[in-house]
């Protein structure tokens, strides 16, 4: 595991941690708030990337996993007064179990069909949350007044930054191992991977469950940051859009790329606000995303790599 790691990587990660730690001293509280959102979107994008960016199994229903985690902890803590320190781990476990139950039958589905079935799961979830036990889920209005675990921008930022840092480091370390190579191999040629003696189904299942755990963890902390949850805010194709585009603009399959993609997208949207408070903002935002994506589908990671290669020469 350690053979792929070197001092250079350790320095990068330490710098990253240091930057996050220093951030509240460097920027305004408003920017810090924006960063909290960017960090959560980043966690979701990394979760998406761990599954879809490497294996090529595109999830169009990632909010489905995030929503299970978020709803689980919201219901446990709000309706049943379970302390947050228990409800969040429980929510992660519930997300993992639920994702396993849902994914087992879907494992044989490939390509666009997989994307569609995840989209269908999300839509199904959206409808079920409103219909089944609205006394628990709060129906269409959702639940407001969920316990928030931090007060103030600085604390919220440190919590989100800590989470995002841990998730990024954890997933990055995983992908540096032979597991990461095998995952990439799924995306390149699943048959050939089986032909190398590896149980691709088990690997996919593991990847999916890890991705679900991260999504559930992110979703659980996210709802305790927001303080409220509503089906429209979670099981929404625009949310899918944000997650996927963040991952792709950052650079699919790179784990840290999606985190930066999330920052880019969130700040693009926030910095347009004073100039374009209305609907124009989303037009520009979507347009920029589309042009960037068309120009470089591999994302900013690839652009940065190109630039670096250019400088090196």
């Amino acid at each position, binding site marked *: 595991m350690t053979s792929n790691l070197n001092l250079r990587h350790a320095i990068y990660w330490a710098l990253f941690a240091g930057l996050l730690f220093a951030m509240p001293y460097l920027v305004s509280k408003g920017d810090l708030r924006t960063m909290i959102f960017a960090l959560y979107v980043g966690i979701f994008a990394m979760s998406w990337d761990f599954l879809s960016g490497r294996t090529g199994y595109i999830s169009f229903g990632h909010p489905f996993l995030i929503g299970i985690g978020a709803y689980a902890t919201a219901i446990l803590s709000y309706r049943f007064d379970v302390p947050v320190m228990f409800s969040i781990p429980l929510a992660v476990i519930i997300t993992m179990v639920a994702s396993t139950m849902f994914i087992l039958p879907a494992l044989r589905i490939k390509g666009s069909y997989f994307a569609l079935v995840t989209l269908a799961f999300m839509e199904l979830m959206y409808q079920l949350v409103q219909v089944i036990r609205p006394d628990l889920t709060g129906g269409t209005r959702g639940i407001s007044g969920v316990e928030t675990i931090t007060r103030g921008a600085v604390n919220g930022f440190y919590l989100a930054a800590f989470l995002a840092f841990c998730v990024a480091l954890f997933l990055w370390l995983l992908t540096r*191992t*032979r597991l990461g*190579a*095998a995952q990439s191999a799924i995306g390149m040629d699943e048959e050939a991977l*089986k032909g190398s*003696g590896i*149980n691709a189904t088990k690997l996919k299942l593991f990847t999916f469950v890890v991705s679900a755990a991260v999504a559930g963890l992110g979703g659980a902390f996210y709802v305790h940051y927001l303080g409220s949850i509503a089906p429209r805010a979670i099981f929404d194709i625009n949310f899918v859009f944000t997650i996927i585009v963040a991952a792709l603009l950052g650079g699919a399959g790179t784990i840290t790329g999606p985190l930066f993609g999330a920052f880019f997208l969130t700040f693009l949207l926030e910095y347009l606000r004073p100039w374009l408070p209305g609907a124009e903002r989303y037009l520009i935002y979507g347009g920029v995303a589309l042009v960037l994506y068309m120009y470089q589908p591999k994302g900013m990671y690839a652009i940065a790599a190109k630039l670096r290669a250019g400088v090196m020469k």
Partner: protein
Amino acid sequence: MTILALDGLVKRFGGLTATNQFSADVTEGESLGLIGPNGAGKTTIFSLIMGEHRLNEGAIRLKGEAIQDLPTHARIQRGVARTYQVPRPFAEMTVAENIRVGLTPDSIMAMIFGSSNAAEELALAEAVGFEAADLDRLPNELSMGDLRKLELARTLATGAKVVLLDEVFAGLTVGEIAQISELINEKRRSGMTFVIVSHDLRSLEPLIDRAVAMTAGSVIAEGAYADVIADKQVRDSYLGA
């Protein structure tokens, strides 16, 4: 001693019977040539052995153990692996990384906590004729001969004792054919078992101990290469094709 026993294999695709009561035994350490015209069903036999197609009838035994109900990866772990007619490298991985996937154990824990063995990768690469400098090359920089070598290396990396080679000479230059043949012979001497499919009978002959000829999914002749090739039915099948 028989290492791989194929017993009455039947495979139907819809109305088409691709494999019809195919039986053959492969002895440990031998090299068996599987010959027959286009569409005879040779590749299907490989796919059946590897579990890429499901068998309709019959049994496949590896070292006496019935493996026909096992998934592909489990069969490989028991010691049989194949190469493809069109090589299938992992396109965005280097030569070393491709070999590494073959060496990777099928255990999530081992994948995460074990470490890759660069020396072993180099040894395998060199065993098929690569040099240390080739390890960082990507598949799109490789010739067809190199791709076949890479696939062979990845297949050997799985630790297979029985190796199925599909159209191993297709698309190769004369020099590359010689190189690959040399490699196979070397492995034969070390006790590895081969089943080889090739259209290029002339290149195949020196690599095999014995031949099985098939047409329309069934065995029509087997024995020493010269005898099989002299068989009237075999000659007719090739002419007919």
